[in-house]
């Protein structure tokens, strides 16, 4: 997969994850959305050879993980 497609792939995963988290079912399915997004992002890491792509993936993983922390804090 070339770099341009890899970056578009990260965009697709992150934006569709954000959309999922805005969904009314996110209160019940948030953890499922996070797991799925992280699985897809970890899959993308294996194909990433370019620093720009790796940085984009790292930022995306942090964003997804941050939603987990913020919802845990909300529960606490």
């Amino acid at each position: 997969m070339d770099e341009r497609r890899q970056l578009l792939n990260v965009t697709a995963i992150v934006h569709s994850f954000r959309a999922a988290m805005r969904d009314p079912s996110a209160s019940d399915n948030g953890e499922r959305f996070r797991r799925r997004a992280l699985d897809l992002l970890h899959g993308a890491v294996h194909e990433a050879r370019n620093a720009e792509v790796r940085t984009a993936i790292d930022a995306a993983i942090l964003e997804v993980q941050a939603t987990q922390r913020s919802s845990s804090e909300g529960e606490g």
Partner: protein
Amino acid sequence: MARITVIDDDNDTLDLFREIFTEYGYETEVHSGAMPGIRHLVRSRPDAIVVDLQLDPHRQELTGLQLIHSVRSSRVLRDVPVIVCSADVQLLHDSWPELVGRGDIHMLEKPFDLATLDRLLELALGEAPPSLLPLGTLSAEDRAQEEEEA
């Protein structure tokens, strides 16, 4: 060039699909309202339709399911492939028995990656999406514009 229409009440999702499909070289129309979307569909008869299953019932005249029923009952649209997307996998699966008998319909669960979307596009359009240009490569259109400016 394939023509795709996307109907979703989430503007960020519309932007995402527009970005992806434009990169693929598809002619893309996006609509945040079900009724304007339907009117456009009848006029343009796209090669594929992407519909959010959960159009907000408080903001929309039709739910995603009702929209698909309308598409399938239309003489001009009944054979157009539909990709139904939702984050709520339970709702997708619950709706599936009602959808599956209604022609060329595919499920897209959010979040998704390009490989998943590509497989559905290939099923819907009968051909895989085109490869993207490598980073830093100019498209033929950009190259022509650069030459014109030079």
